[in-house]
């Protein structure tokens, strides 16, 4: 049976970028194209509407073996454990994630920043615990390192997935002009 490649991480931690990399590496993507690209993600989101309902219905995963699907943390906890997975876990500096989300939602969340920081810590902890307890192989890809030391981070990712794609092809995807909101306070 072929594995399902799950891309996870907190929203605004580089999960869409990882989907683009996977797309470039010619791994088919389970997506319905319903969420179109916008200014926050000019290359699109590679999302599947059905993922939002995973708590009640994870049957869409039956279509996923051999494909990649983006499921943000902590929703991987609802994966169907009868299927096989490999997980790419996107990580990014928490303050950057929080600032990026605040900007995207165009609301001043500073007064709730600690609340979301804490909730996200819990989401990450839960997701890791789930992966470890169920022996699901995963790799952490650090968005911040991907930007400054792209080659090294991409090699790690290529090895984990046994990808045939050339490093150059992948490097083209990691476009620094998408590395936004880094220093914005």
């Amino acid at each position, binding site marked *: 049976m072929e594995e399902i490649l799950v891309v996870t991480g907190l929203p605004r931690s580089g999960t869409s970028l990882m989907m683009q990399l996977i797309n470039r590496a010619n791994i088919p993507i389970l997506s319905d194209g319903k969420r179109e690209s916008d200014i926050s993600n000019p290359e699109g989101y590679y999302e599947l509407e059905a993922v939002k309902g995973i708590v009640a219905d994870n049957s869409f995963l039956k279509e996923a073996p051999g494909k990649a699907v983006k499921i943000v943390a902590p929703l991987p906890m609802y994966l169907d454990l009868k299927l096989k997975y490999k997980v790419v876990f996107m990580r990014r500096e928490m303050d950057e994630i929080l600032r990026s989300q605040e900007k995207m939602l165009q609301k001043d969340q500073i*007064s*709730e*920043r*600690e*609340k979301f*920081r*804490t*909730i996200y810590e*819990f989401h990450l902890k839960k997701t890791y615990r789930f992966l470890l307890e169920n022996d699901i192989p995963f790799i952490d890809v650090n968005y911040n390192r991907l930007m400054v030391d792209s080659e090294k981070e991409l090699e790690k990712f290529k090895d984990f997935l046994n990808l045939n794609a050339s490093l150059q092809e992948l490097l083209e995807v990691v476009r620094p002009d998408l590395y936004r909101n880094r220093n914005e306070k």
Partner: protein
Amino acid sequence: MKKRNKVLLVGWDSADWKVIDKLMAQGKMPALKSLIDSGVRGKIATMDPPLSPMLWTSMATGKRPFKHGVLGFVEPDGQGGIRPVSSRYRKVKAVWNMLTMEGIKSNIVGWWPSNPVESINGCMVSNLFQQEKKGSELLDVSNWPVAEASVYPESLIDQLKDLRVHPLEISLNLISPFVPDVLKMERQEDQKLMILSKFLAHATTVHAVATELMETQEWDFTAVYHDALDHFSHGYMRFYPPRREHVEKEDYDLYKNVVDGAYIFHDMMLERLLGMIDNDTTVIVVSDHGFHSDHLRPISIPKVPSGPAIEHAPYGIFVAKGPGIKKGEQIFGASVLDVTPTLLAIMDLPIGKDMDGKPLTSIFEGEKELKYIESWENVDKYGGELLDTANNQTSNNEAALQQLIDLGYIDDVAQGEGGSDQIKAQIKENNFYLAKSYASAGFNEESLEILLEIEDKSKPDYRILTDIVNCAIRTKRYNLAKEYIAFIRKAKVLGENQLDIMEAKIQIGMNQPMEGIQLLNKVLKEMPDSIDLLMDLGRVYNAIQKKQNALDCFNRVLNYDPENAYAYYGKGLAYLRAEDYENAVEEFLNAIERLYHFPVAHLHLGETLALMKEYQAAIDTLELVRTMMPRVTKIYRWLLDLYEVTENEQKTREYKAILSKIQLGTKTIISGLPGEKLFQALESLSNKNVHIGNSKDVFNSQVLNVMNPDWLSEYTGDVIYVPMQYFGALNAKFEYKFIFIKDEPEQVMDYMNGLMKMRKSSFNPELLADLLNLEKGTMSWFNQQPNLDISYINDIRKLDVFV
């Protein structure tokens, strides 16, 4: 085969020793007194939140609510509405399931919640059996169908249904023992009388069913639960003597006897049950919490769901009598979680290792042999199933719901209107109880996670917001706590004083005790008789070793509440820290006299006796503490030390062997006053390739996460730098070697002045006083630890021996 001894368990919701002891002294509760005289008695600790369906389910399972799944008073009914809490949400086996698996026959009557009933080995009559219908239908006594799934086996329905007593059948004559002037009353339609007749009817039904089943059915175990004392207490405790100013004299005169009457009525029912059993039957009478009957009675009830629970007191009653059970003794340390493990021990059945409670072994004469299994959940035997319910038994559910609304436990939101909002609100409320259940077991992370999920800033709820701040402080998330305090201040859902107390706790947590003390003192001026506040303040003074201030706080507490064991304990600690051992012993004994199951008070008493060289008394005390806190390594270290001093070779060997198993190894700690010498010492070790764990700048006021019990494991160097003020947090899981750099406080002051860009030689009396205090406290701590290996270093060149 040997005949199995029977067990009778009687549950009296909210029964409290203060009322009972007064009545027993007057000879008015002879049945309970006869049990106590020939058995054991004790207090039983409740749990937070003290809500009956959660507690009685914990009682019947030995598990905390986050494991058993029954939360609050109502639950979603799966059809878009809510219904009174039922047995459907219980996720784990109850004692009657375990007994069914073992072929033991039970009668279970009235347990809350137990509808729908289960197909157990025996009979089960649920808490909805006695429930009348709602509204105008209530008046039609002749049309009173038995609630669906309230009786197992169903063949018993005909035998039991006519035993039900309807509130309309309770005449004024029957009420007169509770309200002697009822016949003279002009207001006989008083709502208060309606409540009385209703719960009198319920209690009578439950009693009638219990006696009927005990008489006509074969049984090994009977459990009968009465909720009436709780309802009587919520309705009438405010009229209980002595009268307080805000209670109308006329009402007081009418209703002052109701609570006593209710207890006496329960004793009469107990007398009847005791008359139906033989001498070989074990009897246990238990309550889930107490009920304030004295000056601690609240003046008003908060208008929030479950607000009336504020009247509950933290300890209920536990009484046991039977073969193999001690006679005429007190027992200590019981919790509602212990009831099922104790029942299993009495019946020689295994206790689930996944249970949160423990068997109360101190009730037994001699050593009780205990059996254990991993879990009853995995036992592959039939334990009974919930009875199918075709419809949703609307009429009884509605009446039960209305009852919860009338009692103030849930909000009165019209059924059918805004249904989904109501369900959401109820789910949120139940999740709040779940969070509380986690927090009360010390799982603050789990609690905080739930609280943050249910918190809704558009509908600020002070209870949730307060718990978020407290959990954030307990998990050292000070920025989160501050963010919420800022919101609470803006939303004005709590008073400034409460917010100041929270801020003070943050300051103290962030190692700024003086700022915290300043805030607490500010609040104290406005709330001079707040016991909680004085206790907090006293604890902080103790932590920073301000003996006299601490003593002042605890003495003020004792002026208001002379029986406060924690205040005596605080005084004991203040004396112990000041090396005034004789006074310390006296205060620890005062604390223990008032609250025997107070393990840390015994521990410090033992330590103090050891420091006074009263070795045998110290050994006796610490051996007792070992049974109370078997996981605390420090006790074993003390005992080893004491057995070495008293040259008891066998015990010394024994404790060395125990410690070698439970200790995680040795840590070398370097510390000293934060001056140039310490700085040079760390540098010199570093230069010689000694890896220093926690090697951050010595003067960087970093906060070590000492709330995490494994905080020291985070540091893995050959030598770990721990600032002196953290010594108290060094966990006895490790053995320690100390390298203590001796420096002169005056020189350290000069050095620190320089760092703070002050003139080096300027005299800074506050800083010097702090440094002297820190040094004194550390030396006293060193003196008071068992088996410490300390090397005092004056000349840092001598550090080479550690390389």
